[in-house]
């Protein structure tokens, strides 16, 4: 496993992902997602689960991915 310290852009990407997750889980977007599905139930839980899965997928991709171009300066 590589030492994360040596990849400054890696840290920045993780920070960006953290902020993205925070924005996705927080009110303005959550309020937008809170609308009715055809069945009459709110889409909010569905939105949260999908977004959550997306964030986890991105995190796994960032953390486990092989070194790509641009990872090193």
């Amino acid at each position, binding site marked *: *496993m590589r030492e*994360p*310290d040596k990849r400054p852009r890696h*840290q920045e990407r*993780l*920070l960006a*992902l*953290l902020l993205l*997750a*925070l924005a996705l*889980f*927080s*009110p303005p977007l*959550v*309020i937008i997602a*809170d609308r009715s*599905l*055809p*069945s*009459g*139930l*709110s889409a*909010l*839980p569905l939105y*949260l*689960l999908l977004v*959550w*899965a997306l*964030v*986890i997928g991105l*995190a*796994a991709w960032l*953390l*486990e991915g092989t070194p790509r171009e641009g990872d090193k300066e």
Partner: protein
Amino acid sequence: MRNEAVILGAAFGYLALLFVIAAWGDRRASQGRSLIGSPTVYALSIAVYCTAWTFYGSVGRVTTQGASFLLIYLGPTLAMLSAPFILRKMVRIAADQRLTSIADFISARYGKSRMLGALVALIALVGITPYIALQLKAITLSHAVLVSYPNPIELQLAEERFWVDKSFWVALVLAVFIILFGTRHLDASERHEGMVAAIAFESLVKLVAFLAVGVFTVFMLFNGLGDLFAQAGDDPRLRQALDLSAVEGGALGWSGLLLLAFLAFLTLPRQFQVLVVENVDERHLTRASWLFPLYLLAINLFVIPIALAGMLLMEGGDPDSFVLTLPLSAGLEGLPLLVFIGGLSAATGMVIVETIALSTMVSNQLVMPLLLRSPRLGLESRGELRGWLLGIRRVAIVLILLLGYLYHALLGDAYSLVTIGLVSFAAAAQFAPALLLGLYWRGANRRGAIIGLLLGFVAWAYTLLLPGFAQSGWLPSSFIDQGPWGLAWLRPYALLGLEGWDIYTHSLFWSLGLNLAALVGFSLFGRQSRLEQTQAALFTGALRRDAMPASLWQGQTSRGELRDLLTRYLGAKVATRVLEGGRDDQPAPPALIARTERALAGALGSASARVLINSVVRGEALDLEAVLRILDTTSQTLEYNRRLKQKSEELARIGEELRAANERLRELDRLKDEFVAMVSHELRTPLTSIRAFAEILRDGKDLPDAKREQFLEVVVQESQRLSRLIEEILDLARLESGRLTLNPQRLDLAVLARHGLAAVERLQAERGVTLESAIEVEEAWVVGDPDRLAQVIINLLDNAGKFADDDRPRVRLTLSRHKAHYRLAVEDNGPGIAEDERERVFEKFHQIKQQQGGKRRHRPKGSGLGLPISRGIVAHLGGRLWVEPAPTLGGASLIMELPAAPESGEGEEGTGEG
């Protein structure tokens, strides 16, 4: 209804299995083949976060609060995503300083303060015990549901004998388990490998059990998710269940809960234990950062379907038990038992880790400092204190579990599962300011942390704990509705009239707000002791340094004294391992003293370890100033290095510029020398011929008159040429120094061109040059100095005549308008000028190589200054002068372009040049 013996057998059989796994884990660890050395096991052990509260309570929460239960898991997801920034630092610090609990961690950060450690331990004890009680309650409840279904459970805990209550026995078994696997080593910083293996296994069990119920509910009770959601959507009671409006406090409550879960995940003692203390390898954090959130996602997938199904099918049932009652209602036998075991695993996992964490805190932060202070025990030689220490920890374990059980038995049914959980979360969140700020801000100090924690704790107790007591009937309910003594502004759920918030956000706002304000305020206006400064520097800079500098000890002590100390507290084996031979009467080197302190800190906590070391080291024990200096030097050196690098880059850049400038100056100098040489040469040629002819005239008295006449003519011509040359050189000098006086005015370039043509007509005719002109415009008003422009035009015509074809020389002048400019072009039919020569004809003294053959010699040679001067004049008038191949005559064409003058007479003012 169900066989009581089977249930009991399954439950205690499961607990026995945990013993086996833990024993196996410990055995593998002692063989050096660790079971838990994998990031996956690490991630599973973190899942101790999902307690019985998750297992049973999440479903219950959906029925009242909609989707907000997910926040309890989104917060930790954020925390794990921030692991590279927060958790990695905590793990590294704890490993370097051998810190064993969150109380130890915070105390170490603020100068190994014993008071702070004790405070954190007390708050944790008060705040977390209800949480342990909650787990025991969940076991009791789920057992009761399992046994008495479909009859409603009749539970009056307080009236039952405790030995009938299964959770009492479960607590007892757990106590044995924890004592066996949690206090095997005295050194709390050594991993409890068996315990962690068992916890990871429990995480798997609860996940499987929950997924099993979920699959059963969705695919057996209903025909898939679509069917379930369609039925739920048809039910008017459920239609609003998942809306944001179902969440208490709306958007604000949403954010508050997210923050609460984020902070609690980092500060709950059991999370600190598995995340930081039990971390085997810092790199495991990487995998766990996404694997653990994935676990959370998986265990939450079926919560909503189960809750909807429960609300549809189990009208009037207890939502907290839907997980059990749904499969029970279908008449199943095996699945409810699996669910019960899943719930049991969730509860026991939490109780085990939480109790270990709390007992370490209680023994190291509360009891040990007291014992060390008492003269009877502290430093007198009482042989092995090792047994004592383990004993203290074991007693603490039993007491904590007992306390949890009592709380559970006494508080009874007043609180729902979820309520207690969040109250505990809010208590643990009080550690966050001191912990997180301490990691990044060097200025945070001990007094600020203590006062902040106290204020936060009081605010928490007032806004969450006491109202809870009121709800349980221990306090009058008017306490909540009207405030104490009828003071409305003191109502605990609406402090100072802050109404309309949900109780958790409300409490979090007051407690964390006061906590943070006190921490920052007192830190800004307080002072730090030297030890505190050192620790602050070590904590905040933990990720920047590869290794902590060993503490510098100046004091004197011998190996023997250190060996006594270690033997007394940690046993002879540890003492031998730490000291590594050497004679006992030798003085101990500083590094050895530091290692001894670390070994003691692992067992006793950092504050107590320091007291012990101070007791045997004579003289100025720890030269903190030196340590601090080293730390500062290190960071300063880094800073200097950075600046130095910047400077040298700057220097290199400046050097490059200087070199370029120098190069240019050299070139100019060379040009100047050339110029001077050329000027001298040009002046000498006419001078020489004047002198030669003058001498001939002087000496040859008998020259014929015709000859004399001819020679005199040459002398006159050469003198004229000389003065013209000098005039030109002076012009050039004025041009270059900017002292050329121009007299710009509005003038007609067409008139000027005709004048110029007329002026050279006779001369050119003498040379046989045919002059043509094509003046395409009637008038061409420009701004310029008429004399100078005339000079330029004549110069161009003259020049063209010189380079025109030898046999039939032709020169053509054209004047045309080109957009906002007038162009005056002079062409010849000569050989033209090669492309790379075109700019060079404007250099001083540049003369195009004369053709061989000497035919041209009869034409007067130019000085080589005419074109540079012309270009200078035109440029001064705002125009351009350049060379192009001639379009009609085929030779070279010199083109002068001047901007057209403004239409009105204002142009009289000219360009102001001069």
